[in-house]
């Protein structure tokens, strides 16, 4: 039996919903890794994974087999992650009234020489903190560029933004991360 992605998609579209299981099992782990890097925590990543597959199932008719199913799926995941982060940010700002949070000073004010933390934990903590403060678009663009290896053109298409916007999102993210992680990088 043909179990390639396009063949499985065709089976699902013929009404064989169980074939979707193979797609979930084949791609679920990678979508989780991607979602975790975008959202920064496992719980949100789980939500993104679930929502990604549900959206994929609902819109499977729109998948065109000339592109890779995984690429199409990651595109949905990226957009789910952006939606989730924007919603959380929107809610946080509205409920806490704290839109002007100075993230950079918070990151750099962390004592990089704190002895209590193991170095690896400190690296993870600092990176996590710096990543959390990027805008959803910057963070997603950065993850797609640096962890997934997408080109600026592919990021632009994935996020539905212009080429310049995609490029500058990546640049801004790199600049912010460099500044936020400078004390850490200098100490290595």
């Amino acid at each position, binding site marked *: 039996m043909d179990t390639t992605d396009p063949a499985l998609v065709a089976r699902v579209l013929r009404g064989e919903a169980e074939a979707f299981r193979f797609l979930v099992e084949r791609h679920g782990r990678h979508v989780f*890794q991607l979602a975790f890097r975008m959202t920064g925590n496992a719980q949100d990543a789980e939500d993104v994974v679930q929502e990604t597959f549900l959206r994929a199932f609902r819109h499977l008719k729109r998948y065109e087999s000339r592109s890779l199913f995984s690429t199409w799926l990651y595109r949905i995941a990226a957009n789910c992650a952006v939606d989730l982060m924007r919603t959380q940010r929107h809610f946080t700002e509205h409920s806490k009234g704290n839109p002007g949070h100075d993230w950079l000073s918070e990151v750099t004010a962390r004592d990089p020489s704190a002895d209590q933390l193991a170095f690896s934990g400190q690296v993870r903590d600092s990176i996590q903190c710096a990543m959390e403060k990027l805008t959803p678009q910057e963070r997603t663009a950065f993850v797609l560029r640096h962890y997934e290896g997408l080109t600026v053109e592919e990021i632009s298409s994935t996020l539905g933004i212009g080429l310049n916007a995609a490029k500058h999102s990546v640049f801004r993210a790199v600049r912010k991360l460099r500044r936020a992680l400078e004390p850490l990088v200098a100490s290595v």
Partner: protein
Amino acid sequence: MKNDFEIDHAAGHLGDDEIISLLHAKPSSDAEQHLSSCPRCRTELDTYRRTLEALQHWTAPECEVGYEARLWARISGALPRTKRTFWTRVAVPAFGIAAAVVAIALVTLAIRNTPSEQQQSYDPAPPKASDASHRILDVAVKDHFERTSRLLSELEKSTPPERAHLIDISGEQDAASDLLAENRLYRQTAEQQGDRPTADLLENVEQLLVELDHSPSEMPAPQLENLQQRLSDTDVLFKLKVFTSLHPDSNSPQSPVTQL
């Protein structure tokens, strides 16, 4: 347009964007020449490279054994039915049964704990079981709102394929039909409990679900746009998100909806 590798002659150094571009591209001969003679720009480029190297160590946690099976179990339960058969039409969905049980339990609790006038004069403290029923309703409604939000978000973001005049919304319609039955029960229970804000929000949701349920399974593009516009205008999705976000942290006896 400024070239990525153009040297900022005014400052005598490469700009941030130029340096970031070099992280993934071979430097132009101009940039290479500049880097070979400028320690500051070399240091800058090195710092950016080390930053990205540090970021490479940031990995997602490994998924546990059996992750895929658990993921499928969660997803398969939430997948919309692809086709409605006679049996799926007549069978009350599982969520509907759960909702009915919760609603009946809540109404029973509310009736049992409604004090008589005489009791009221002796016991000014609010009945504990009533608080419990309120909490049960909140939890059930929160779950219901989360599923409703997912459906309405999907609908809000739907874009008709190019030149398509009719959009297949049968999947969304099935989900709306299931949610509608629950929604009615929760609204009646909220009204019974005097939780007006929650009942009002449920009523807003119900109007949308009814419309969706009664629409043709292939909706004309203008009708979908109209529905999307109303979704956006009424802020229903945002209210649902606020309700579900506020709920876990809300210790106030007041309904979260009143805080909107």
